């Protein structure tokens, strides 16, 4: 009986003391970043490594300079034969640039292949979204908070079967404190430090909507999608450029999961998920967009 209690005690101490779920050690990963934009030249590719969180992060110290980088245009979807290849070389800014220019084609699949000595090969594919152009006429100017709205109309030809996700980026050309719309003026006006105030103005001068689902659009009788641009996206009076991005799956997965890392969604405070990666052999993103650009001037209401 005493042996039984002795072994029970040892077993209990083991259970109490041992860690059934130990945390991993830091492991260095290769980071790949590239976004292709339909109808625009092949864009740069950044290749670097991660750094431990306890260390200072300096991108230029982490650049991988000896990678062999190729982007292939495939004949069809993923797994199909290569139609064209585009090699890259390291530029002075620490990113890899295509040696020969190529305009990214919409609704086509591109494959990225990276080989680095003494590291695993890296591959990824992206299928660029369909080209789209706003079918509505955007007025030269609109009055803030009026019934007139910037409306984006996407024709059925640009819409595939999959649910589409958008990001809208607004760039204000007259980003000054005086030109802030009342809400943001009130909020930013509470900052006493002029340096921080300027920094906040600069932040607001280019802001984005986050991911918006196609489900927010109304479907017109002809099958096109209609979105009324919300006033919340306008932070400054004056000239504003709005860029509408349609995301591919890779970009959608990366952005939505990265946004959840520090307090998004229904995760408990302190639960940090990894980002959803669609790259073999590395972390990061090889994604693509199709975009369209709108411009208008936002005028003050008489009361402002």
């Amino acid at each position, binding site marked *: 009986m005493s042996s039984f209690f002795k072994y029970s005690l040892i077993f209990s101490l083991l259970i*109490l003391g041992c860690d059934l*779920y*130990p*945390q*991993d*050690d830091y*492991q*260095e990963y290769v980071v790949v*970043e590239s*976004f292709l934009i339909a109808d625009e030249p092949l*864009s740069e590719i*950044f290749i670097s490594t991660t*750094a431990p*969180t*306890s*260390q*200072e*992060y300096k*991108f230029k110290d*982490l650049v991988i300079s000896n990678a062999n980088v190729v982007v292939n245009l495939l004949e069809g979807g993923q797994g199909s034969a290569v139609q064209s290849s585009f090699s890259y070389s390291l530029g002075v800014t620490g990113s890899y640039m295509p040696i020969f220019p190529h305009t990214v084609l919409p609704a086509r699949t591109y494959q990225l292949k990276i080989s680095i000595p003494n590291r695993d090969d890296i591959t990824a594919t992206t299928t660029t979204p369909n080209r789209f152009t706003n079918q509505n006429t955007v007025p030269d100017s609109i009055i803030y*908070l009026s019934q007139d709205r910037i409306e984006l109309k996407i024709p059925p030809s640009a819409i595939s079967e999959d*649910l589409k*996700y958008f990001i809208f*980026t607004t760039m204000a050309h007259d980003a000054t404190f005086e030109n802030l719309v*009342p*809400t*943001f003026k*009130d*909020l930013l006006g509470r900052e006493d430090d002029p340096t921080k105030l300027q920094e906040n103005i*600069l*932040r607001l001068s*280019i802001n*984005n909507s986050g*991911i918006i*689902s*196609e*489900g*927010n659009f109304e479907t017109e009788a002809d099958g096109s999608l209609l979105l009324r641009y919300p*006033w*919340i996206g306008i932070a400054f009076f004056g000239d504003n450029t709005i860029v509408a991005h349609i995301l591919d799956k890779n970009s959608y997965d990366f952005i939505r999961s990265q*946004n*959840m890392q*520090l307090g*998004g*969604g*229904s*995760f*408990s*405070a*302190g*639960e*940090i*998920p*990894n980002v*959803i990666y669609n790259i*073999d*052999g590395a*972390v990061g*993103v090889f994604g693509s*967009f199709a975009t369209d650009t709108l411009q208008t001037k936002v005028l003050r209401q008489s009361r402002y």
Partner: protein
Amino acid sequence: MPKSFLVLLLAIFGLLSSVNIYAQPGNASVSGYITDFETGETLIGANIALIEINKGSSSNTLGYYSIPNIKADTYTLVCSFIGYKTFKRTITLSENESLRLEVSLSPEGLALEEIVVESQREKREQKNIGTVQMNTALIKELPSVFQADVFRSIQLLPGVKASSDFSSGLYIRGGGPDQTLILLDRTTVYNPSHFFGLFSTFNPDAIKNVRLYKGGYPAEYGGRLGSVLDIYNKDGNRKEVAGTVSLGMLSSRVMLEGPYKKGSWSIAARRSTLEPILNVLNKFDDLTLPSNFYFLDINGKINYDAGPNDKLNLSFYSGVDVLKFPLAEDFDIKLNYGNQTVSSNWTHIFNERLFSNFVFTGARYFNFPSFNLAGTKSTRDNNIYDFTIKSDLEYLATDSHTFKGGFWGGVMTLKLNDSFDGANTFGSRTQANYGSAYLQDTWKATDRLEFIGGLRVSYFSDGNYVRAEPRLSAEFSPNNRLRFQAAAGRYTQYLTLQTNEAFTAFDVWLTADEGVRPSYGDQFVLGVKTIPFEDYGFDVEVYYRTMKDLFETDPFIPDISGLPYKDTFRFGSGDAYGIEMLFEKRVGRLTGFIGYTFAYTWRKFPGYNNEIGNPNGPGRSYPPKYDRKNDVMVVLDYRLSKKWKFTTAYNYATGQAYTEPLGRYNLQNPTWDNPNFVTYQTFVTGKVNASRLPAYTRLDVSFTRKSSFFKLADAEWQFQIVNVMNRRNVWFYNYDFESNPVKKEEVKLLPILPTISYTVNF
């Protein structure tokens, strides 16, 4: 509705309608209600027995007891209940006599030492497996954040955890708050919290009884994977009009109760009292504060004694939280959420063997948040309506068999509509019919061995699901100081709750449907309940439970507009196991308990928590944040003198789980974002929630002083200090990317918090 379900319903009524099948000629019985002598309030779970033959029972949820099959003779009937003096009476029963004996127990009074004469049988506590009966008086005495709270008192028990100091949510045996069925007078309460989760909606002045089934709950309950919290409002003082007024720092309460010719009534209201403070603070221009912020609730009940065998009651609850917060010009937040419940109950005693209860209930949960920012309004309309009819029958067939059976049917309507900038972005309206029926037999095989076997069958129309849920428990008592218990059962849940543990103002309930199977799980519990010394108890329970087909909203979907319903979820599983110990002293000048829990809980979702480089993997199990391996709680209640009482609660727990980021990188050129700033700073993590916060420890004290209110009524001052040691426990870590390397900052829980309250009882 499926045929199998209807067949079971008919079987229940067929079995129970043959009333006289098991009646044995020549036997007597004694039955009646057990009440508080001073107020007439019925007492739930009071023990009553005949000493000479060691035969007894306990009062049910309506305070009714029955002891049938007694030979004609003279006996000593003894009745006891915690906090009351023992009742003794000699009764003589003749052959076939059905004695109706209403028992009134007197409260203990101011005696500092307890003197009790007990029978062997009635000395047993109401301690079925996994079951805890909360002392409602203790709820009001325990030190708590700002005010007494039912849920925060329950959080002190072994096996029950809180996610933080700011939350009254119940995490019981590894399950989240949605895995506990919360009933108020038999009506489901869907959002039982005020003040963003800081308090529960249950006014401690209005509550009569709180019973928690931590696990392994019997067939008469269903609909949740884990636990049941069964709360009853007071019926009302049947002797005289009485009341309580309590003034606190955060809220104040008033309760009135009294008799009328045919019964009793009670009404209690509670309201936050922050407005004067807000009004003063709002005069300072540099402070941004809500313009309106309050919570309010009201409970009421009226009882009607239609006859000696018929009682009717009607009870209701209504509560709301309102927030209006203008943050800047054209920028405001509004919250309006709450619950309303109503239940009407008819209790009928057919005879000393057959007892019935019929209830009609209605419940509504509503939540209308809205945000307005720079001319863009975002709104949500979230409503749940739940109307049910329930019936329970209890039949004391023989000395060894007691049958219980019943059904629960209802219609649940869930409406959820989101709009953004004037356009509807998501709309869902579900109307589901649901029903369940159960049959249960308590078989006393011998004086020392008892089995409870039951079967519950449930149905949910959305998806046309039928589920069978068998339950079995057993208890063996080799002597009067030792009870061995075991329980096993299958449990099904058709609902899931989308919630934020820190902030419950946006809770949304979602249901199973086509393509969204209900979750289910099995529970296995073993327990030992002992009385090692007189007036002491020592209990140990070991449990293991599974959770399958868990469904919850996919946290990685930023915008659900346009998605089919089933695609908005992720599906997973979990399990939990642990051991709980409770050592308690329930009688005397010093009472209290020491509780210890050692437990694990895990969750797993396909594709989540995969290793980097294995994105299509099955996912790895991980502990949720509220998992704590070791949890110690000490609660002591000491009567210093006739006027002074001291209560303390000390909690030590090993740290909650969190994710320690291991590496990082930045995107260099996110073309859709502001190029002047580094915005996509990304962590690389290892296993989710594989690290532990520092241990949590907190000591709270409370002093209660009885006095009088200008000699007109009894009064009580309560001085409390929460977190006497001012230990700044860590809630979670925040990461400041403006520093390089990234700076980890602690976000802390409550500091030392003194509070004071004053209560008048008249």
